[in-house]
């Protein structure tokens, strides 16, 4: 491609008029006809138009940063952000409070009741997906238990207990359900019965919850006695705490 020659100032101004839509109908018609007949001229005009548009676009690009700097300050904080911040604040607050309560309790070797509150978590229950027809009521109640509806679970299990009073699984869960529902004395009798069945898979857990029951009843020596029988991690931890 040969070196482009200078365009004349008049030619530039003609293109400017064309670009800005300032030509009369007649002039525009004649100009476009000339372009159609001369590909080189047409290319020239296109190039100048690109130049003009580039100047505008680049200028705008530089201008909008000024616009951006002048954005009105947003008074209303965007809701989801404020929620998030609030949530974070709440989480932090919760951690601080937990830590404060935890250390208070830790350093003051506080009452058995508090230890109970800190350690007691309801038994997670059994998986409920393999409900055969025989066990239907048992697992149906287990669903209630897991949902925290201990009263319904207890009433369903009590009916089963009448049919098979020595079922170790049933006895154990009646114990932990009563404990979760804060019936300490009932929990104690079921869990004692459960802990007597030393062949039961639940015996370790029964010792642990029995220890918690005694703690709740402020009988630390009894609690330690049962914890010593148990070899579970939770029991060891709790025992450390009580010594």
């Amino acid at each position: 491609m040969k070196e482009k020659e200078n365009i004349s100032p008049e030619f530039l101004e003609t293109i400017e008029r064309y670009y800005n839509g300032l030509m009369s109908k007649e002039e525009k018609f004649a100009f476009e006809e000339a372009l159609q007949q001369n590909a080189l001229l047409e290319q020239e005009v296109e190039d100048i138009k690109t130049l003009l548009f580039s100047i505008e676009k680049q200028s705008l690009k530089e201008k909008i940063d000024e616009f951006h700097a002048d954005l009105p300050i947003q008074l209303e904080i965007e809701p989801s952000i404020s929620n998030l911040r609030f949530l974070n604040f709440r989480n932090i607050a919760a951690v601080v409070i937990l830590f404060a309560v935890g250390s208070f309790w830790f350093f003051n070797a506080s009452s058995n009741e508090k230890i109970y509150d800190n350690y007691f978590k309801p038994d997670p229950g059994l998986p409920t997906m393999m409900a055969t027809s025989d066990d239907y009521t048992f697992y149906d109640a287990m669903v209630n238990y897991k949902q925290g509806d201990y009263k319904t679970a207890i009433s369903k299990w009590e009916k089963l207990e009448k049919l098979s009073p020595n079922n170790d699984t049933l006895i154990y869960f009646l114990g932990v359900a009563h404990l979760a529902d804060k019936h300490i004395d009932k929990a104690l009798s079921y869990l004692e019965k459960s802990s007597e069945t030393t062949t039961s898979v639940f015996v370790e857990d029964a010792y642990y919850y029995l220890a918690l029951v005694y703690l709740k009843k402020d009988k630390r020596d009894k609690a330690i006695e049962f914890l010593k029988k148990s070899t579970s991690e939770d029991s060891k931890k709790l025992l450390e705490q009580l010594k």
Partner: protein
Amino acid sequence: MKETQEIDSQNALINAIKSNDSKALKSFYTSNYYKVENMVLKNNGNKDHAKDIYQEAFITVWQNIKNDSFVPQNETALQGYLYKIAKNKWIDVVNSSRFKNTKLIENEYTLYDKNENDTDEQDFFNEKLEQTMAVFKNMGNPCKKLLTAFYYEKKSLRNIAIEFQIEENTARNNKYRCMEKLRKLVLASKS
């Protein structure tokens, strides 16, 4: 008062944008920004992303108005159009592998800009445009200032003459010479 009334109407706004009316552009820019920012912030972006994507969309809208490829259908068409373009651009960014890979390196991040509807011809034009813009961006003053005043701000040669404290005829000559200079710089940048 007269200005705000003008901006209320879509056609008036479009005409104002076409003539690069500074007040209209600024008001159009500032009144639609936060909606886009919210959209970007809610979709894994930060404020820098929002600014980049909004400015890109803003320039696209401006360009489409200039090219007459946008015709408003209702009272808030232009505002909705701007939001839609920004949203589509942001979706492209989020879906791009570059975004996924460089999400943590914000400073090195530049927006991915590719319109799938672009034909080869448009690609060629856009490439030429970008190239010319880069040359103009780095052009020295007073040429850059003069060309901006005349072609972007649409100031008359007479007003430019007053502003630059020169004769009107000198302004006309200088404008011409600066255009020639820009043309040559662009040609040189291509070789």
